[in-house]
């Protein structure tokens, strides 16, 4: 019993402190938290500093006075509000589209009555799609979108974001569906429920956590997407990451508004992952298991 207490691997002490000692563990946690938190602290304070403070050297570590001037400037000058709306619309539609057609495809691959061979072919294809870098399709997509006059439209960005996230969603949801006991569907089948009925009434209600995980991961990825936003937008559909990158000039002194924009961009995803942390972490973990 005493042994168990001394080396309890489920205890708050963590596994590391069991063999490296408590000081090592505490030092590691304190150090890693400092390195993670200080830049975030710096971002938030710079967003709230007076102009003379964020330009000052030596830097003002703890501002004596705070202001929302940078936020006001942001909304006044840079067409920021319309960019915020654009990013939100693109992200919301992409998320819905991905979850809808991704989870259904995943269900067929996990449990659908189609041949084993077909399942393997589609599964491997989606896996390969998941792996390859977006940049390899960037130039042809640009050429085609230009020919179709779809540059600078929300539509083109929704299409491309859905395209990147679909393979990830399919693999993730396959993992969630495969965990369900097969007896569930067998009982549904005995009751005479067809494929659609089984999916919508039996399976979907109990895979809600999986769907939420998939939705959060898509939301975050689309919200932050930069490469295609910068390629496919000229003026009207600049998303927030493009706006933030636009703050970088040779002068590079607009730190206040830049920080304010980053803070505003960070708030929604922080809230989302904070309130749905369990589903978010489970999604990450499942993604790694399904590789």
């Amino acid at each position: 019993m005493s042994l168990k207490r001394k080396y309890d691997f489920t205890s708050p002490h963590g596994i590391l402190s069991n063999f490296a000692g408590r000081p090592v563990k505490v030092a590691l946690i304190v150090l890693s938290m400092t390195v993670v938190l200080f830049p975030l602290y710096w971002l938030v304070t710079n967003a709230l500093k007076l102009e003379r403070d964020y330009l000052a050297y030596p830097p003002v570590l703890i501002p004596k006075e705070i202001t929302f001037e940078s936020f006001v400037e942001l909304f006044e000058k840079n067409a920021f509000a319309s960019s915020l709306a654009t990013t939100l619309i693109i992200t919301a539609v992409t998320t819905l589209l991905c979850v809808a057609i991704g989870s259904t495809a995943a269900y067929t691959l996990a449990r659908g009555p189609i041949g084993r061979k077909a399942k393997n072919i589609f599964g491997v294809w989606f896996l390969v799609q998941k792996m390859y870098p977006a940049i390899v399709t960037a130039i042809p997509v640009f050429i085609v979108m230009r020919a179709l006059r779809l540059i600078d439209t929300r539509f083109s960005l929704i299409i491309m974001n859905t395209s990147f996230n679909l393979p990830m969603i399919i693999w993730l949801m396959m993992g969630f569906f495969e965990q369900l006991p097969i007896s569930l569907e067998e009982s549904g089948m005995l009751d005479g429920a067809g494929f659609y009925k089984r999916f919508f009434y039996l399976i979907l209600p109990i895979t809600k956590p999986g769907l939420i995980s998939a939705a959060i991961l898509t939301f975050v990825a689309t919200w932050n997407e930069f490469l295609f936003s910068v390629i496919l937008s000229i003026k009207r559909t600049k998303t927030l990451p493009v706006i933030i990158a636009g703050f970088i000039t040779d002068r590079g002194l607009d730190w206040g508004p830049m920080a304010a924009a980053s803070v505003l961009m960070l708030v929604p995803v922080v809230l989302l992952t904070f309130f749905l942390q369990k589903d978010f972490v489970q999604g990450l973990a499942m993604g790694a298991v399904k590789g």
Partner: protein
Amino acid sequence: MEHRLDGKTNRLSLSKRKDTWAAWSFLVPASLFLFVTSFLPLLYSAYLSFFRFKMNLPKAVPLFIGLENYARVFTDSQLATSALNTLVFALASVSVEMALGLMVALAISGDGKINRVALAIFIVPMIMAPVAAGTLWRMMLDSATGVVNYLLSLLGISGVSWLANTTTAMVSVIFVNIWQLTPWVTVVVAAGLKALPQDCIQAALVDGATPFQVFRRIVLPLIMPLLTVILMIRFIDAFKVFDTVYVMTGGGPGLATEMLPNFIYKQGLKYFDAGYAGAMAVLFVLAMTLVVLLFVKWRSWEEAKL
């Protein structure tokens, strides 16, 4: 044939066939979508790789030049430099992320309140837009007014031009990736540690194994398949790095932090050389596929060991 079956079988096989149709109707939308938006562009890339095509000229017609673009790939010293940079970037950032991520995950693997708070905080860097993380660090690393140099000056180290010097620029870009994605490794490994069979570990302890032995002989082998997958995902993702480099250094100074995605981007959308960009894209995909296959082999070998 149908009329020879009795009514019941007929109905059953009919509903089975209906199910098969329904299953395909679930698979087709996503497949068609990916085929059109992802597979066809890649094929188009491959097609263009055999042509000279200056896509900025309005009436430009692709001119067939055979394998010339591919020959150029193997003689372009700038491309060789970016490929080498990408490899250095991937190896350095991923190895640090794995080691550090595993250690921090072990440190916060308990159930206490501090561990939960730590986990919540670690999530923030990984959900931050890479563009935002890059600009934030660019501000902090500014050689004249940045807070990093100020803090270093308190320690007596002065005036490092982080992003203007070839070596430190690479170190900075690698560091920002480590800052963003070590927490990802930590969170995923921590979730894996939680799922370990506790009774097995307890039994070993009761049998007199030291904690380090337990880690070395039980915990590590059990999470090895997970670590392999994490390594694979991180390694492949490192080759896709674009956003942070774009905002921090733009590939500079010179070619010091030029990576493959940025290089392809420039060839295609700055110099408008769609053919050459296409050839690089094709080879890039082939190389990544090879890496994935090696990892898949390695993982099945790891799993067979268990």
